[in-house]
């Protein structure tokens, strides 16, 4: 069953088109990374999915219309919409009380368990916590909710690398169980490469690339080409070429790896490499 299903999803703010006819289908049990430059429409897409903004076109999340049924949808959907949206005045104990009070699927003992691993005191107010601790608290609250879809919009922005690593580790180890679905956006793409099952690039309100990670790993190859074989490599239609330490690095889509191995060192590209290639080409095409 599709957790998210969108057809012709459109959203414009006055003359600015944030989403121009996006078709999207996210199946249960996937971890989808939504990657795009600033202003590409990622947050707009997530806001539409979460019922925070009206839209045109068809959109179903867990079979519901998010705009008209947000409160019902939120029983099964959780989200962390960028960092530090927890109210600064609230105490940790009050946050636990409140979520336990209003959310029928919140497991307080579980949240307490997650918090016990941190240095967060129950009596602290959010304003007294460090940025990393606020993220930990929010994650503890969200992971204790037995939801079917979790949406994370830049959940680790501004956190140091240790916190970021820890954040995704606990998400995978303590939360994800193959029946849940996670949609995440971030600029720190390298860090989530191993976490994702699916990848989607979004640019200028459109989907620029859609791929599962298996496809990604089998289709794309990056070759650091021997200097004397560059011409030969270019003949194979690389989708991108860049120079590093005087060597040419070429990115190929759907070219046989054994054939490439003869030209130089072959490895699976990072999401960031592909992102630069795809977005760079689109920019070039636009000009």
């Amino acid at each position, binding site marked *: 069953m599709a957790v998210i299903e969108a057809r012709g999803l459109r959203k414009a703010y006055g003359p600015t088109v944030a989403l121009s006819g996006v078709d999207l289908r996210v199946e249960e049990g996937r971890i989808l990374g939504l990657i795009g430059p600033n202003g590409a429409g990622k947050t707009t897409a997530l806001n539409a999915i*979460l019922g925070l903004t009206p839209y045109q076109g068809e959109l179903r999340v867990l079979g519901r219309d998010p705009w008209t049924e947000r*409160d019902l949808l*939120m029983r099964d959907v959780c989200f962390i919409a960028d960092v530090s949206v927890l109210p600064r005045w609230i105490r940790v104990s*009050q946050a636990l009380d*409140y979520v336990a009070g*209003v959310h*029928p699927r919140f497991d307080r003992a579980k949240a307490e368990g997650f918090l016990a691993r941190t240095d967060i005191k129950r009596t602290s107010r959010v304003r007294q916590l460090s940025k990393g601790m606020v993220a930990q608290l929010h994650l503890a609250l969200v992971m204790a909710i037995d939801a079917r879809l979790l949406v994370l919009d830049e959940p680790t922005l501004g956190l140091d690398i240790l916190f970021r690593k820890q954040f995704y580790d606990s998400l995978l180890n303590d939360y994800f169980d193959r029946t849940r679905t996670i949609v995440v956006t971030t600029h720190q793409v390298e860090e989530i490469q191993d976490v994702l099952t699916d990848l989607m690039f979004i640019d200028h309100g459109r989907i620029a690339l859609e791929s599962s990670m298996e496809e990604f790993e089998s289709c794309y190859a990056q070759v650091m080409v021997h200097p004397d074989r560059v011409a030969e490599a270019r003949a194979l239609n690389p989708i991108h070429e860049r120079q590093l330490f005087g060597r040419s690095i070429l990115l190929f889509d759907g070219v046989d790896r054994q054939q490439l191995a003869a030209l130089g060192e072959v490895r699976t590209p990072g999401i960031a490499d592909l992102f630069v290639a795809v977005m760079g080409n689109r920019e070039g095409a636009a000009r």
Partner: protein
Amino acid sequence: MNAPTAASEPRSLYWSVRREIWENRSVWLAPLIVASVVLFATAISTLCLPIRLRATSTPAQQHAAIVSPFSMAPAPIMFTTFFVGFIYCLDALYGERRDRSILFWKSLPVSDGTTVLAKAMIPLLILPLIALALGIITQLVLLPFGAVGLAASGRNPGLVFREFHFFRGLPIMIYGLTVHALWFAPIYGWFMLVSAWARRTPVLWALMPPLLISAVERIVSRTWYFMYMLQYRVMGAMKEAFIFDKKGDISSLSQLTPGRFLSAPGLWVGLVFAVACFAIAVRLRRNREPI
């Protein structure tokens, strides 16, 4: 799967009201501070009772000297809660957008209707209850001071319990709080609507339009009808719900005029306006994003 749906609506409302009180500590702190000050001032005044009693000649004046500190005490507490209510409403749906916490509240299964209802209950129910509780406590704490004052002036300390009818004052207090909550409902509603709509300075957006309308009316037709209407909204509950005695006091139940209050068109027009404002605030909150 649908089982929790039915039971959780009142539960969400209850927790939403609690979280409003957690966030806005002024809701109970401001009236509490005023009550303490009133208590302090009145306690000193009752201890000076011997001096004031000496200046009286008739039994009626004596009665007034003994009772007035008690009957006056709840009024400042009540006015404080009205004031806190206005301030609260102006920030209720604005603050959560300014600090972006609206994104957290909206990530939980609480509808916009429940949220706005919980916020409306603060000025319409919670603040009057706080005023009532503090009013009662203040009066009860003051009684022994009155007795001491009487004893100091060589009278029977028990007189204070005979002169001051606590159980006559209580229904007047409840009545006064109820009529004001109903009468001010459109002001609370308008302020909350503005707080859901304004991108900045909700206080200006709340106050400028009525003043501008009034100014335009004055310039165009040289009349002040709109200004009178505003004045009636602020003062009207006093006028419609009570008959003040010559000294401007309310001391007996016969001075309450619930019939006249309930038949005042201003009450019902105001309530319809208030319901409309709260309904629009619900719609606005659904659309609103952090500022």
